[in-house]
């Protein structure tokens, strides 16, 4: 401080507080750190975290993977077709999710909801859709529409609808209220206010969320066949359970290739759309 020159040298020597008024904040930080350590240590015991065993027996994984070194291409046509089915499940699942999420997201945004009860109902509905795993939904729909991709698509659509709805409602709650007021102030109707005051503001984020969830739906659709939801997941489950390593290797390779292709396409779409 002594070598302060220029403006700093000209500052007055008035009384300034030496420390922020919350003197106990350091003690509180320490308590929180200690609490976190205790919780994490307890959780480590619960999940039987044993890093030493992993280090010792990591070679076993190598022996397991050796079975996968020679993929079989005997049924690759059927697997490829099931990958197409998987993409279709994800496409329609995401479309259904959009249809579910738009009304829920609009009603579940505090700044648009017509009534607090409507807001609460929309929020709780989205909570339930998100809390119930897509696999559980798939088991439910299988009983209604039978085994197959239709059940898987319905399951993905409902679960993802809850996720997208929550993201949409939170995006809407974060919009600039001034731009919204600028539309409402001309006496526009409710639908008009949404079309001009809300949609332009949330569209870039919403498109981004849709693409993100589509990528995630591809991964979910690739395993939902395990519970009868159609797509490549059935063969993944079937070949792994039967220790049919060479067939399983083919299925896994195809899934990886499919996910990579979809991610490339969706990032292209993202760049074009936003």
């Amino acid at each position, binding site marked *: 401080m002594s070598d302060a020159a220029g403006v700093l040298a000209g500052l007055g020597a008035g009384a300034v507080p030496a420390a922020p008024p919350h003197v106990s904040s350091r003690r509180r930080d320490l308590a929180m750190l200690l609490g976190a350590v205790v919780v994490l240590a307890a959780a480590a015991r619960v999940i039987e975290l044993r890093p030493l065993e992993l280090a010792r027996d990591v070679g076993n994984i190598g022996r397991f993977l050796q079975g996968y070194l020679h993929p079989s291409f005997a049924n690759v046509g059927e697997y490829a077709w099931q990958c197409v089915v998987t993409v279709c499940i994800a496409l329609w699942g995401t479309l259904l999710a959009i249809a579910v999420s738009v009304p829920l997201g609009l009603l579940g945004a505090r700044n648009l909801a017509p009534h607090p009860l409507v807001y609460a109902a929309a929020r709780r509905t989205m909570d339930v859709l998100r809390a119930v795993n897509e696999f559980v939904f798939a088991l439910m729909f299988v009983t209604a529409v039978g085994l197959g991709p239709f059940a898987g698509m319905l399951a993905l659509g409902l679960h993802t609808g809850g996720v997208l709805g929550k993201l949409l409602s939170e995006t809407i709650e974060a919009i*600039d209220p*001034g*731009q919204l*007021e*600028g*539309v*409402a*102030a*001309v*006496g*526009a*109707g409710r*639908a*008009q206010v*949404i*079309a*001009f*005051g809300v949609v*332009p*503001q949330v*569209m*870039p984020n919403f498109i981004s969320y849709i693409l993100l969830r589509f990528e995630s739906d591809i991964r979910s659709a690739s395993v939902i066949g395990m519970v009868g939801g159609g797509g490549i997941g059935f063969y993944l489950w079937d070949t792994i359970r039967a220790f049919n390593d060479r067939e399983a290797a083919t299925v896994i390779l195809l899934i990886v290739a499919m996910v990579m292709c979809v991610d490339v396409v969706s990032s292209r779409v993202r760049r074009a759309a936003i």
Partner: protein
Amino acid sequence: MDGFASPVVTIDRVTRTFRGKRALDDVSATIHPGQFVAVIGRSGAGKTTLLRCLARALRVDTGTIRFADVDLAALDGRALRGHRARVGMIYQQFNLVRRLRVIDNVLIGRLPHLVGWRRWAAVARWFAPAEHAIALRCLAHVGLVDRVWQRADTLSGGEQQRVAIAKILGQDPRVILADEPVASLDVLNGRLVMDTLRRIASDAGLTVVATLHHVDYARVYADRVLGLRAGSLVFNGPPAELTGAMLVDIFGEYPAPLSTSEALSAPALA
């Protein structure tokens, strides 16, 4: 000034409280058609609250506000939207939809005039050619035809405020309420916006109520000045009667007023 034509706005003993603080305290005034009324006072004196009550963005606690013969307190749903359609709002921060083009922002002003299926076509951003023609004329009136297809957020502050004026021209209101319309603008743009508002008031016989924290703008542009101090109306008269003593009354500790020329050449930053 009062009494030669039936008032367009009647404010009668209005009180509005926020968490125990009186933002408006027993305010009464009448505003006549075609008048340019400036509301002046310090920050927190209740200027914006008064304007928001006139727009029925806020309800008054006691007292009544009437537009022509309509009591604003009774408005709801469709009638409230009708009131908003007849009142054009200008904001300090312009409040354009930033991601929409200039033309779309002006077309927003046409929304309350659409009838039947066109109301729903507008939701898909489709407007009849006649509506486009009106929007373009409004933009020409504020001198911004060359900006029609640009996104609103690519315009300067002064241009955005003029787009906002074009929007309420298209809205065709009876009264314009302007909340600190020039506080975010530099002096030249501020004067351009005030000139435009003044011209609209004079040409179309529109009533303008504008909050201004620069007394000098009020002196130059207003027919009548309402001075608020801590929620109370302490001045109501023509700008010529705004003496130094009056200004101290309105602004309290306010020092001697700047001369008009001095004030208008100094940067007016928000």
